[in-house]
């Protein structure tokens, strides 16, 4: 079918839903999602959303901005960090007004707790800035925004998979989606398209992401010729459940949890004397891996212990109930008496589709692509720089999701349809036919598994050129294997065998952008740590990496960082 909408939003997490609420009811909006909206991965966010409300202790948005910039190892665009921190209070009050059930202080205000890298008075010590609803903050905000979408009767197309984005002559034309229930291809012509498809942790073997997070919107933008920004900056969250990668919130350490090695030693005291266990994620993940590599993993294995035994059962029930249930179910561990085995897990992509402060997607000349917008983890504003602070992601989604929605509503007055091509789905039809053509061969799973293992081994927490070059050549053989991929399921109804193969193309393409961007950056900054270039090098590398898919191959170029209030200085915690 061909659908014609004024606005198509792809992705029903917090960014997509928040943007949708800004579009006037006079416009015809479609919200596309691979899943039912309440299944979106924003719902897996646990610990909190930051805002300098000062409900528990004095705080200020300037401190929040500073922490965001320093947390991002000065790669953060400071105009974006200022926008985020200044708008945080309004954004959190707004969520409260529309019903988000935050925990409360004894005087009835929104309760707040400490989180990694968030400090008082420009780094003096931890500050309680994270507003939370137990350890299911993302989930309840998702439910709250979904409820508003229901109230507003926004038209939702659930289980529609984005498979092509069409941009012609610098202007969006629309997109092609595959309907899981029927196997039909649909084109959506639109005056405005917002890409809010989230991250792609599935590039890595150990990750905290849902299976649906395969970066479809980011990859398809790249395939359509849009450059991607800062793809080498991949966040490994320090505390994933050992062997599973399931997230154990940083809120555990915000509430007093302590990381311990095989000797029971609180090793973070050595790596971050001031903030200790509440140092930013890149610092803690490197510390954990250093402990493991130097033989201090628990029982000689590749994990350390997260100790919550001193926090107390009542406080855990009140503030950390979901993670205590995960530990119980998956490890058989009672967190009030025994530690949780944890290891770093791929969690968040700082890089993505470059946008301005209003969600407009930018081309290589930093000019907006007409009618194309992006927000959330799919986008790179860049508000997280080289390393995102915990709780800044949920804030990013509602602040920049709203701004993108407002910009769409504004620009919609002038935007018209791009009718350059009459047939938008020709490439997609051909692609699916050719995917279904082989009658035998290798299926998705072993290829995906090898890709994830390769990225884990060659380009994760610790990196060096030799390993990454091996990774790049290994990727070539993975691409070759993909060319003759075999889809066993030939039936149209809920053919996830086919969609997993489509998703795998996205994962492979994004892995390549990560590897190439990481090989090019010959310094260490934030989450990008090079053993062969262990220091930050502001003279040569205080700049954003841009990678673009061009007819003659991939091209890497750079763009400057916006620096307004805070000059780069040494980053210690």
């Amino acid at each position, binding site marked *: 079918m061909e659908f014609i909408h004024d606005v198509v939003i792809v992705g029903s997490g917090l960014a997509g839903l928040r943007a949708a609420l800004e579009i006037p009811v006079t416009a015809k909006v479609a919200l596309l999602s691979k*899943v*039912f909206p*309440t*299944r*979106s*991965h924003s*719902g*897996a966010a646990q610990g909190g959303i930051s805002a300098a*409300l000062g409900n528990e202790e004095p705080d200020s948005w300037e401190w929040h901005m500073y922490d965001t910039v320093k947390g991002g190892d000065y790669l953060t665009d400071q105009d974006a960090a200022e926008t985020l921190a200044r708008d945080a209070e309004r954004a*959190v*009050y707004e969520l*409260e*007004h*529309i*019903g988000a*059930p*935050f*925990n*409360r*202080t*004894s*005087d*009835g*205000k*929104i309760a707040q707790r400490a989180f990694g890298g968030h400090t008082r008075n420009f780094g003096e010590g931890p500050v309680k800035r994270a507003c939370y609803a*137990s350890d*299911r903050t993302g*989930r*309840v905000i998702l*439910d*709250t925004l*979904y*409820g*508003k979408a*229901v*109230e507003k009767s926004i038209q939702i197309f659930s289980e529609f998979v984005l498979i092509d984005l069409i941009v012609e002559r610098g202007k969006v034309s629309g997109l092609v989606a595959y309907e899981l*229930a029927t196997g039909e291809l649909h084109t959506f012509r639109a005056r405005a398209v917002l890409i809010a498809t989230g991250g792609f942790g599935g590039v890595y073997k150990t990750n905290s992401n*849902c*299976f*649906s997070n395969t970066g479809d919107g980011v990859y398809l933008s790249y395939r359509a010729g849009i450059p991607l920004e800062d793809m080498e900056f991949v966040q490994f969250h320090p505390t994933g459940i050992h062997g*599973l990668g*399931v*997230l154990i919130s940083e809120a555990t350490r915000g509430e007093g949890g302590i990381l311990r090695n095989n000797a029971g030693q609180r090793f973070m005291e050595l790596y971050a004397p001031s903030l200790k266990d509440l140092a930013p994620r890149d610092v803690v993940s490197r510390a954990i891996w250093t402990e493991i590599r130097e033989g201090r993993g628990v029982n000689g294995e590749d994990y350390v212990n997260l100790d919550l035994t001193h926090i107390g059962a009542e406080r855990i029930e009140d503030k950390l109930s*979901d993670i205590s*249930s*995960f530990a119980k*179910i*998956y490890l*058989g561990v009672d967190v009030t008496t025994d530690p949780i085995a944890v290891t770093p897990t791929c969690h968040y992509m700082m890089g993505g589709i470059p946008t301005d402060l209003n969600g407009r997607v930018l081309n290589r000349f930093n000019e907006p692509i007409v009618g194309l917008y992006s927000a959330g983890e799919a986008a790179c504003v860049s508000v997280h720089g080289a390393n995102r602070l915990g709780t800044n992601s949920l804030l990013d989604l509602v602040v920049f999701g709203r701004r993108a929605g407002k910009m769409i509503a504004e620009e919609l007055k002038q935007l018209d349809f791009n009718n350059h091509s009459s047939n938008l789905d020709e490439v997609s039809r051909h692609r699916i036919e050719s995917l279904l053509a082989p009658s035998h061969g290798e*299926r*998705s*799973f072993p290829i995906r598994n090898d890709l994830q293992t390769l990225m884990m081994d060659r380009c994760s927490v610790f990196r060096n050129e030799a390993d990454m070059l091996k990774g790049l050549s290994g990727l070539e053989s993975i691409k070759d294997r993909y060319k003759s991929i075999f*889809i*066993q*399921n030939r*039936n149209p*109804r*809920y053919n*996830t*065998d086919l969609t997993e193969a489509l998703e795998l193309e996205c994962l492979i393409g994004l892995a390549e952008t990560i590897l190439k961007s990481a090989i090019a950056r010959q310094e260490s900054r934030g989450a990008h740590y090079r053993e062969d270039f262990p220091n930050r090098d502001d003279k040569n590398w205080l700049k954003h990496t841009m990678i673009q898919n061009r007819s003659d191959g991939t091209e890497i170029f750079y763009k400057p960082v916006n620096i307004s209030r805070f000059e780069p200085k040494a980053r210690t915690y």
Partner: protein
Amino acid sequence: MEIKFRIFRFDPDVDAQPYYKEYFVQAQGNERVLDCLNRIKWTQDGTLGYRMSCAHGVCGSDAMRINGKCGLACQKLVKDFDSGEILVEPLPSFRPLKDLIVDMNPFFERVAQIRPYLIASDTPEKERLQSPEDRKKMDLAIRCILCACCSASCPVANRDDAFRGPAPLVQAFRRIFDSRDEEKLQRLDQLNNKEGVWSCVNHFECTRACPKEIPVTKCINLIKAEIKKTG
């Protein structure tokens, strides 16, 4: 160890009737039933259909009936089933669309009917104040992930399609007992009938099924008590 799975299969485009198919999977005791389904789909039979996403009990996608009990495939471990054989079926009373995938649209429509959003006219400059005690009244209900295990387990809902079922009632509970909501009476009124709370006769199957340990039956009974109190 080797585990035998018997899985409900049905593709209305291909099959005249549903049938059960057997698979044998190598699995460790601490692996999830979902891991086994993935292994079957990825290495044995790509035609198997089921929903899943987060794989750790937060998104609510992979609700199904496992050895007769509704639950999330990502929360049930192989060692939970000592018989060595695991029977996997779609949620009962939901229309099967393909294999373990059921039609969720009527369920979400029922959730929408209870107006799953805060109704409040005031917009103070900062947050509305709410005491920790008032906030605590919703604490268990906000765990709901809309997986539908409770509704599928409810003997009344299975028999009587007019009954809204437990999950929409939990959603209603969350708003009725939110001190900030201004339409509590209207919400109670909407549920003061057989389609609402009065068909519930305390089988407790919903409570037993809930993967998030919400005391679902208790929530429904608290709504009933509130109706009596205000009526």
